[in-house]
Every structure is written in C-alpha cells, then in structure tokens.
C-alpha cells in the first residue's frame, strides 16, 4: 500500500476520487478487534463443549440403537437414561441455539454505529477522506461476512451434535426449532439479526436501548415467520390422505403445519422431509434480501443524517 509521504502543495488535487476499499479492512479490524475476538472466543468455547458433549451423545445413542435384545431391561434403562439426561441437555442447548442468532446480533450490530454516535467519534470518522458512506458500507459488509461465516460453521457443528435426537419428541429437520439451527438458515438469521442491530443502532443512537430494541424486533420477526410465513412457503402440500401420518414419528416423517376440516373431511398441510433444502433456500433467500435491504437503509440513514 503506497501512502503519499511528500507534503502536497495546497491547491494540488491529483488524487483519484475514491480511496480503495482495502483500507477499510484494517480500520474495521482495529476498531472492532475486541468484538470479533470476543465472538470467536465465545463460539470456540461453546464449540468445544458441543464437541465433548456431542461425542457422549453420539456414543450413548449408538449404544442405545445397537442394544440387543431390544426389549430387555438393560436396553430400557439405556433408553430412559438417554431420554432424561442426554435429551434434557440436548433440548436445552437446542433452545439456546435458537437464541444464538439474536444474541450474536445484539452484541455486534448496534456496536458498529450506535457507539460512534454515542461517544461523538463520528465527528472524526465521518470527516475523514474516505467519506461516511464508503466507511459505513465497508464496515457493515466486512463484519457481516465474518459473522455470517462464523455462524454457519457453528451451526454445522451443532447439527452434528443434535443429529441423534432427530426423531425424538416427534422432531425432525423441519420442526422450526431444529430447522433454524442447521443448513444455511442459522447463518441467515444471524445475518438478519446483525443488520437489524446496525439499523436500530443508527436510529436509536444509543447502544443499550438499541440492543433491547433489536431483541424485540428480531423476536417479532421470528414469531411472524413461525406462525404466519412458514404456513405459506410454496413447498407445503395440502392433502386429505390421513395414511401419511399414521406411523410413528421418525426423522423422515412429514412435518404437519396445520390441520383443518372442510365439511366432514379433515385436511392436512404438511411438508415432506424431501423438501428440506428447498425450504432452506426459500427462507434464507428472503432473509438475505431483508438483510441487504436493512443494510441499504442503514447506509441511507448515515448519508442523510444531520449531526
């Protein structure tokens, strides 16, 4: 990187219009170093725990399914022990995993802009040569990419951890709490949480209220998706064929969204397990569009904000 070190004559204006984007890599890193290291460290610590716990869970599960004879007392004990100890832990972590995107989002999103506004350092940052728009775009993009990648990797590890539990409690890939934690969905939700945080940070201009607001908005969006949007993804099938739902729940059972009756005939709306990936792509797709829109809105706000 060449930096001009000769004193320029006042009046000379030979530089091209915009500074290269790479400059912002160091700027973003140095300013948000603690945050990035903190997030990585926390995810790493939890990952180590998931690894250790996961090995135990996998071991207990394979011991359970390989247990012969299947109806003996010894195998029944294994079953109930898996059901209690392992499943309790697994379910708890599952719930926490569902909260992870918003937790990641509230500790990263608001910090980008709200802190500058709260402490007044935006008066330095936005009067530098690079200009406030490029500064914002670069920061948001760099941080979003890093956080999304970390989130994706973390969710892959969790998916491995949780695999033995599929089929328990009538769960499979498509149950909302499970679906959100695997594939690319977890990363997409984390990205959206981050961008919600950044936008609210810019709007509210103080970190803690922005964090609380991000929590609220995210939960609202999550609830909306679960209760409303998911019912209508174009992957669901409506049927009157009750026979599909009679067997025991396995990881391959179809996932029922809702049931209703017309006249005397009961109807079911369900998603077959084979449609897991289409559903992931649909949901991650609109989440990505939303994240980009939120990012654009944030940049627009930065552009027109008066001190």
């Amino acid at each position, binding site marked *: 990187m060449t*930096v*001009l*070190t000769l*004193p*320029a004559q*006042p*009046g000379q*204006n030979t*530089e091209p*219009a*915009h*500074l290269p984007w790479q*400059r*912002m890599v*160091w*700027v973003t890193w*140095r*300013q948000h170093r*603690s945050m990035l290291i903190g997030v990585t460290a926390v995810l790493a610590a939890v990952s180590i725990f998931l690894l250790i716990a996961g090995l135990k869970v996998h071991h207990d599960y394979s011991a359970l399914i390989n247990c012969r004879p299947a109806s003996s007392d010894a195998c029944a004990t294994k079953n109930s022990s898996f059901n209690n100890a392992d499943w309790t832990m697994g379910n708890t972590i599952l719930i926490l995993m569902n909260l992870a995107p918003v937790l990641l989002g509230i500790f990263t999103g608001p910090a980008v802009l709200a802190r500058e506004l709260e*402490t*007044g*350092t*935006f*008066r*330095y*940052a*936005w*009067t*530098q*040569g*690079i*200009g406030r*728009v490029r*500064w914002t775009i670069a920061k948001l993009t760099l941080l979003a990419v890093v956080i999304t990648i970390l989130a994706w990797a973390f969710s892959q590890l969790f998916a491995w951890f949780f695999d033995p539990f599929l089929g328990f409690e009538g769960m499979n890939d498509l149950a909302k709490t499970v679906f959100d934690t695997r594939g690319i969905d977890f990363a997409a939700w984390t990205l959206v949480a981050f961008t919600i945080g950044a936008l609210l940070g810019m709007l509210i201009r103080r970190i803690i209220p922005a964090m609380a607001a991000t929590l609220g908005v995210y939960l609202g969006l999550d609830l909306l998706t679960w209760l409303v949007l998911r019912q209508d993804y174009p992957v669901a099938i409506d049927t009157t064929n009750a026979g599909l739902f009679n067997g025991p729940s396995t990881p391959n059972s179809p996932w029922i969204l809702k049931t209703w009756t017309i006249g005397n005939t009961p109807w079911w709306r369900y998603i077959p397990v084979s449609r897991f990936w289409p559903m992931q792509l649909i949901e991650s797709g609109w989440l990505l569009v939303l994240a980009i829109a939120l990012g654009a809105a944030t940049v627009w706000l930065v552009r*027109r904000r*008066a*001190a």
Partner: protein
Amino acid sequence: MNVIETADLGKRYGKAWALRDCTLAIPEGRLAALVGPNGAGKSTLMNMAVGLTLPSTGTVTLLGGMSATAPAMLQDIAFMAQDAPLYKNLSVADMLHLTKNLNWRFDHARAKARLVDLGIPLKKKAGKLSGGQQAQVALTLALARRPRLLVLDEPLAALDPLARQDFMGTVMTAMADDGVSVLLSSHALADLERVADFVVVLGGGELRIAGDTDELLAEHRLLTGPASEADRLAGLLSPIQVKRAEAQAHLLVRTGGPASAPVPPGWEAHPVSLEELVLAYLRPTGIGSSSASFPRTELTEVTR
C-alpha cells in the same frame, strides 16, 4: 478565493433556530476566529461547514465554491470536534494508522515526529492521555492530512494556559509553513485576540459582524463625552453600544472609513480593542440592535 462562503445559512432544530440568516465570506490564508457565547451557533456553523449537518436554509460552500457535502471536499478539509474525539481504547499509534488508512494524504513521518517532540507516548491508549495531550493528538492527526482548511471547534476549552500556548503555536506554524487556512472557535476571546486576523461574531444564533480584524478595528471608534448629549448623539449616529457612567457616556460607533473623520465637539474618539468590539456586538444597545447588520454612519454628518 474564499475558503468559506455562506449565503443565508440557517439551521433549525424543531422550532428553534440554532443559526439564522448567516451570510459571510472568509478569505483564504487567514486565522479566522469564530467567537460568541455558548449556544450562539458556533458549533452549528462549523458542523454545516464540514458536512456533518445539513442546512435547513441557505448554502455553505468551501474552497472556492465546493459544496460542503461533496466527497472531494473531505480530502482538503480537516475537522477537530469539541472534546477532541479519539477512540478511547485505541493507542496513539493506532490513531495514526487509522487516519492514514482513511485518507489519501497523510504525512505519517511528520505526525510521528511531532508527537515524539511533544512527549506523547505512542503506545498509550488515547483515553488515558490528559486533555491537553488528546487535543494535541487530534490536532496532529488533522494537520498530517495536509488540509487546505483546518476547522477547530473549541479546541482550547479544556486546556490549561501552557497547553493552549503550545496548541496555538502549532497552529500558527502550520499556517506559516503549509499555508493552511484556519477557522477556530472559542468562547474566550483572550486566547485569540492577538493571532486572529479575521473575526466572526455570533450571538443568539445570528451573525453579528464579520471581517478582517484590522479593518474592523479601523472602522470602529469609541466616542466619550457628556452623558447629557448622549441620547441626541445616539439618535444621529446609530451606535452599536451605549454605555453610561454618571456624567460620562461611551458610544461605540461604526464609521464608513478609517481614522480622520471629525469628532463632535466636546467628545473624544478612542480606538477600540477587539474584545470591546466583540462584547459590544454581543450586547448591543444601540438603534437597530436586533438586526443582523449594523448601519455604518459617517461621522461627518454629525458635525454642523
């Protein structure tokens, strides 16, 4: 070329105008002092000049006609906000590196040398420096960008007299060596009296007066005479300020030109100091004291 030009510039927050009807032109190469009490609109004016705030009305252009919000403008203007905002948890060296990355022009070697000269440890976190040191770091960063215009918002407010002297010394040297134009605000005129060669007086969100220091001082007179004639003379001369003290009255008037206009009999004319001038414009008591501009009077009209 004018480094800053405003036309009817105004800024409103809700219903209250922080600045209104501000029209001025500051030529280049000056150290322009922006003075006025707290809340007069100095920060508002500066924020608009550096593009941090958008005007509600009017325009502000810089360096010969560039819009204050043009991206190119940021290359040639350096701003130091009130309280010298630096990133508290970054070291001084980090702040240098940061500013280098965010700008085209940055004289890293010179900035470093200057900080070492001042005895400011480069590894120390900016938040742990003293007020004077923070101000010097912020100034160093701004100057190292080799701007054509340096805008400083109340940089001296938190500094002790020694630190103020050092700070102003740095500013003056930069002006002499690099030809930087400077706009500097303060609510304490004493700091700037001797060095400012252009003065802008803001009061209550209005521009009271602006101009070259020398010209302003030459154009104003303090007339001292019997209090009994004060009202009659005030009616004729439209003074900026009238002060009475028992038998004597003082009228501060603005004349059309320099020195030798005849003075009314029984009255004496004295030159005014910059401080007297500024205070008078901030607390005018003459006719027309609420308008933005004050009428000039030919003293020759008075003598009959």
